[in-house]
């Protein structure tokens, strides 16, 4: 992830060298993840507040648009098909496609996720190349879900697949203002509540302990 290094109020020529940190590099390690999420107040340190504000403002300006800004239509179609296999909707509930994960990705790589753009480009090109090996007339998105899964299994150890998976989770579960998680379908999937406040009992066991059952 290429991070803009402009300090909050500084000018570009005062900035130190840019640093490249990839989101996938940060996030692929489950251990790192749990360890950091365990630390009160831990953050992932991928960009600065100014970048976040910029990304959110940009996402807001793009809301409702379905075309891509940073991906080509070809890349968008292939990557959307791929994320739809990471979180599929075969079970009848919304998955990554319905959540608009591809739009989260399209927006992210134009802002705070710019450093991951090459990984997405590589991923799309590689999937289409492999699809053409299966059937010269086809792109990845045109293959059957079974064939798509087969091709994804073949690349699942590649770093760019890790990036795709990481951004799929982001697009499924981040606040909808980032472009994905449309209508909070990601939160609905896992059962994350959206109320601003709750009252006890909160779950089955504390209700049971309080004698109320549930």
């Amino acid at each position, binding site marked *: 992830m290429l991070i803009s290094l402009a300090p909050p109020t500084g000018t570009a020529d005062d900035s130190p060298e840019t640093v490249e940190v990839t989101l996938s590099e940060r996030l692929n390690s489950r251990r790192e993840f749990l360890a950091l999420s365990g630390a009160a107040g831990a953050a992932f340190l991928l960009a600065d507040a100014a970048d976040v504000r910029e990304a959110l403002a940009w996402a807001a300006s793009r809301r409702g648009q379905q075309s891509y800004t940073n991906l080509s239509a070809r890349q968008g179609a292939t990557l959307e098909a791929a994320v739809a296999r990471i979180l599929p909707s075969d079970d009848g509930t919304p998955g990554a496609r319905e959540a608009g994960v591809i739009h989260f990705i399209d927006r992210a790589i134009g802002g705070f996720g710019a450093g991951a753009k090459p990984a997405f480009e590589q991923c799309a090109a590689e999937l289409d190349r492999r699809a053409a090996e299966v059937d010269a007339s086809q792109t990845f998105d045109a293959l059957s879900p079974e064939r798509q899964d087969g091709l994804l299994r073949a690349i699942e150890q590649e770093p760019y697949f890790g990036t795709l998976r990481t951004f799929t989770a982001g697009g499924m579960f981040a606040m909808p203002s980032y472009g994905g998680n449309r209508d909070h379908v990601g939160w609905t999937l896992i059962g994350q509540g959206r109320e601003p406040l709750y009252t006890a009992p909160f779950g089955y066991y504390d209700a049971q302990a309080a004698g109320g059952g*549930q």
Partner: protein
Amino acid sequence: MIRRQQPSRRFGAGEQVDFVIVGSGAAGGIMAKELASAGYTVLVLEQGPRLSVPEYDHDEMAFFFLGARTNLSSGQPQQFRPTPSDPWQQRNVLLYGRTVGGSNAHFTANMWRMRPSDFNEASVHGTPSGTGLADWPLTYDDLEPYYTKADWELGISGAPGPFDPPRSRPYPMPPLPVKSSGVLFERGARSLGLHPEPTPMAINSQSYNGRPPCQHCGWCLGFFCEFRAKSTSMDAMLPVAEATGNCEIRPDSYVAKVETNAAGRATGVTYFDGDRNEHFQPARAVVLCANGAETPRLLLNSSTPRFPDGLANSSGVVGKYLMFNGNWGVSGLFEHPLNEYKSVQTTRMVLDWYETDPARGFYGGGGIDARFQQYPILFGLSGLPPDAPTWGAKYKRMLAEYYNRTMYLAVHTTSLPLETNGIELDPDLKDAWGLPCMRVTYRDHDDDMSVGRFLVERASEILEAAGGQRQWSLPVTPQTSAVHLLGTCRMGRDAATSVIDTNHRTHDVPNLFICDGSSLVTSTRGQPTMTISALAFRAGERIADLARRGEI
């Protein structure tokens, strides 16, 4: 009742104040309140912005992934190596809140007191070879009145526990309502003959000092409380400090250097404002509450010919003996929904293994608490067991099945102070303001790992006894990041081996004081905020007394 009766004080440019406080977190807010209430003029310089309630959104992406409220990943880079024989890597490993309120504004809100035994472990158990374990120059009795003051002035919810040290007053508020994780944990722990107890939390269980009770929204860890129900230094102390009319909180003010004169006294600080203009702020005394990373960095960056190794560093221990606290755990799946996304992070803990027990063969102890410790994106990436699929229909199904039925038993443990673990100035790397960056050497001591493994095993037994359907954990391995930044300007009676005295005055500079995580001599059992708070109440009183007697 806290209310803003008047606009807070605004000092003019270059106007000398009695005290300039660097940092507005757990310690800085209390220090400001104590000194301003004692009648002194106080200017608090905070490098981060002051957020307003509409900015307190529950944005997991911004906070956990984009570092929106913490020290800057790019503008404030760090280098890291585990041991002095490893190469440096550019990597930000020490995280802290970079807003008014500091890390304390978005902490989990655990408020564990230390026990009498914490203060003299070196005498009782000996100093493990190769470590700097030392006794505190204070006793529990010295600090108890200030733990109690923290309970009442901040507002802590809790109930007496079976191992509690003596307390001079009860908790001001009863515990928060138990969550499903707490019920299951308590059930498991009791069946093993343990002593589960309510977790003391800096969160209101009822209206307190004009702030409302917790609304159980579930977004404590990593987020500000829009209800002001979290008893943070920011919400409980800063308004009181400002209401005295003696205190200004100045955000977006990044302190570069503590200035000293030929007589070796501090004259004030140099800082950058939000437009990166440099200012000198004169003060009769300087109090550093900038956290265990930035306080030593600032001292090291304030060297002069008179103080060539950094200010207040005649001992050479500024930046050394950094301690993180261990942080590991075990996850478990249960049959019915726990809905842990609601309410505070944790409601029950066990402290049965708090003490160092020589029979275990290693130094240290800690506690275990029941929580969830996940938010949606984090869960999507790392919430499932390690053998779960990472994509596809089954992955999706498991996310749906596990999110509300999982709990995590977190273990919180001691860290030994090692001379080789610490912070120094990087000779080359500069931050966005042109100041030398910090570089960090840190590796957990073998005993720290042992106590972590020991408690993870105990947590696993509790989870099993609680009726977990399955459980999983990650190996206990050395930590490579931290938010508990402790011990780097340790307190002691001997100026040759410590940085501050028991009044929090630096041994070397009579009008320079330090109070924050850096002051700690030992690490606590993994929850340092209560001790930092108590130290700040005590230090504020001592410093005000010294000032009143003309001894600063």
